[in-house]
């Protein structure tokens, strides 16, 4: 799970075997099929389950135009939009988490934990503060900018020699950075009534905060980011061999890093603008994916983008069912599950050199 942090020789050995044998084509095809099936089932579940649960036949009736008006309202107006949001946000966070874990060489990297989401939030808040009314595209643009600045800071830190040697230090750095950004955001929000009004509903990540039109704005950006991350996977695989080896193989290391940074910002900024800060999804999913398909970064990125929406949907459904009447925002559910996973990872990776 943490092979990128093991000593260089071991890492290289493992990478070589991964490159030679790799996950076989059949295994990959089956994995794609399984994760797609799970995703479709969960989408249906997300449409059906909640404080007023519907049966599958009810759903079928609705899709053919029958069914009560109340059910129609619940499914098409409320649950459909949050399902779409979950798909977009999940895919964005999953892919960017996997990319960050590879580029920063850190198994604990996550856009929510390390402050990229906080940067996006700060961007949105200052956008509203400076420009007054926040149209959707202003919100998107400022979140993108905020995410980009935060990711830039983080990637620069990761290059420093004292941080490069230690995954834990760069994580602590990101957490502190995230806290500072969140504090500034809160300062802006609380001193401006106008910002407070638009902001307070997504202090914790939620899939119901934004209308469906917002998803329509976010979708092209996230899709573009996903397409780019599809292609950068192979380059990151080579980068995993170490900077020197990658250079020798004709890869421009700086180029790959910079484009990863841009992709991460492109994915996380809009996702945060859509759902607020959802932590730990980008951290947890790549680890789960690695359990099944091994350490091939290219595949980990692709499967994370596919599996993360499933996990987000599960968390969202849990949030709907767990609270008796009062719904629990998805950000809280992911934070509970993710922090437990983080603690387990830190506690039991003792012999695997999580320095």
């Amino acid at each position, binding site marked *: 799970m943490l092979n990128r942090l093991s000593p260089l020789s071991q890492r290289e050995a493992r990478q070589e075997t991964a490159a030679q044998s790799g996950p076989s084509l059949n295994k990959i095809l089956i994995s794609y099929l399984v994760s797609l099936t799970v995703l479709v089932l969960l989408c249906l579940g997300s449409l059906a389950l909640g404080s007023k649960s519907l049966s599958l036949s009810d759903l079928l009736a609705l899709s053919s135009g029958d069914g009560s008006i109340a059910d129609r309202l619940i499914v098409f107006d409320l649950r459909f939009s949050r399902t779409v949001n979950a798909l977009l946000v999940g895919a964005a966070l999953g892919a960017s988490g996997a990319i960050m874990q590879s580029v920063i060489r850190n198994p604990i990297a996550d856009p929510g934990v390390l402050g990229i989401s906080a940067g996006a939030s700060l961007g949105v808040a200052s956008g509203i503060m400076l420009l007054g009314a926040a149209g959707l595209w202003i919100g998107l643009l400022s979140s993108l900018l905020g995410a980009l600045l935060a990711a830039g800071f983080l990637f620069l830190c990761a290059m420093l020699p004292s941080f490069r040697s230690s995954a834990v*230090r760069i994580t602590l750095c990101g957490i502190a950075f995230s*806290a500072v950004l969140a504090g500034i955001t809160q*300062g802006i929000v609380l001193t401006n009534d106008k910002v407070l009004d638009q902001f307070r509903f997504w202090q914790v990540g939620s899939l119901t905060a934004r209308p469906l039109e917002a998803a329509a704005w976010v979708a092209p950006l996230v899709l573009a980011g996903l397409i780019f991350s599809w292609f950068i996977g192979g380059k990151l695989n080579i980068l995993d061999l170490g900077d020197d080896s990658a250079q020798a193989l004709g890869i421009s290391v700086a180029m790959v890093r910079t484009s990863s940074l841009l992709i991460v910002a492109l994915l996380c900024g809009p996702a945060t603008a859509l759902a607020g800060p959802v932590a730990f999804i980008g951290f947890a999913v790549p680890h789960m994916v690695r359990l099944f398909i091994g350490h091939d970064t290219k595949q980990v990125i692709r499967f994370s983008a596919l599996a993360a929406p499933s996990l987000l949907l599960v968390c969202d459904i849990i949030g709907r069912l767990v609270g008796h009447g009062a719904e629990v925002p998805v950000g809280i559910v992911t934070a509970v599950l993710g922090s437990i996973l983080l603690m387990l990872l*830190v506690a039991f990776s003792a012999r695997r050199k999580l320095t």
Partner: protein
Amino acid sequence: MTPYSSMRPSRGEIRWIAILLVLALVVLVSSAFFGSYRVSLADFFNTVRGQAPAPMTEFFVLERRLSRAAVALCAGMLLAASGSLTQQLLRNPLASPDIIGITTGASFGGAMVILLLGGSLASASFGAVAGAIMAALILIGAVKVLRLSGSRLILLGVGLAALATALTNFLLTQVFVPSAEVAQTWLVGSLQGRGKEELVWLLAGVAILLITQIMFGIDLKMLQMGDDLAAGLGVQVTRTRLVLLFIAALLAALAVVSCGPIGFISLVAPHISFALTKSRNLISCGLTGGILLAVSDLVAQYAFSVSLPVGVITVVFGGGFFLWLLFRQRRIHG
């Protein structure tokens, strides 16, 4: 007694405590003069002597401003002393109770009692103490059983803090919260509307802090030289460390009950205090923290168009300080 003679508070330490006491008093007094209701110097002294010129003046000076500043001073003292203890005991400059989940554990415990059992401040205190001690026990378990140390221990604590915050958030969604201010108190920390009721608890904490310094001050100094040497000098190492960690949790919990999990004071104050006084005396460290929190609270109240929760100010500046510490240190010991 020769080895002990150098362990007593030195003249420098006492001088610094005096200086910090005077500074704390200055902050306390000056807090009475901020704000839109103006108080003249003469009015202030008359009010303090019990001859207020108007009931309004008495209300603002004594009920609102002085008691709030006193709460800030005491809470800051407790947080800073707690931070100093955990940093020394876990041998890590970053291991303060707010980073490693003790304050958020306390906040979760307190919130749980208030929200689920509808408790008063007193029962919330027990909940908070229980939460803090639970978090401390988990960390002790991590040290003893899993042999975690250094940055990994901190990261485990960060996970613990995130979990406690998420659970508190969850509790807040499950019950009717009358105002955002209440939620803020349990999540960020705020001194809004704090006064005499909280001061009783905080003063009890300050008393514990003084007793700890008197009883364990020498042991602490010896523990700094390493467990083996301390054991050689007659310190019961394991027991002392355990007792002191519980005291640290208790102090943090008392601070949290009265003003919520105010972040980063407990991280920053011990470092500033050590840089100034060159000693890890709990009293001077506590006074530094108290002054920091009281000044932060004044900034939070009056520097912006709207008064902010003090936690926002401490997070921004304390978080910046944390980053600076990380950058400055080549290696974190452990």
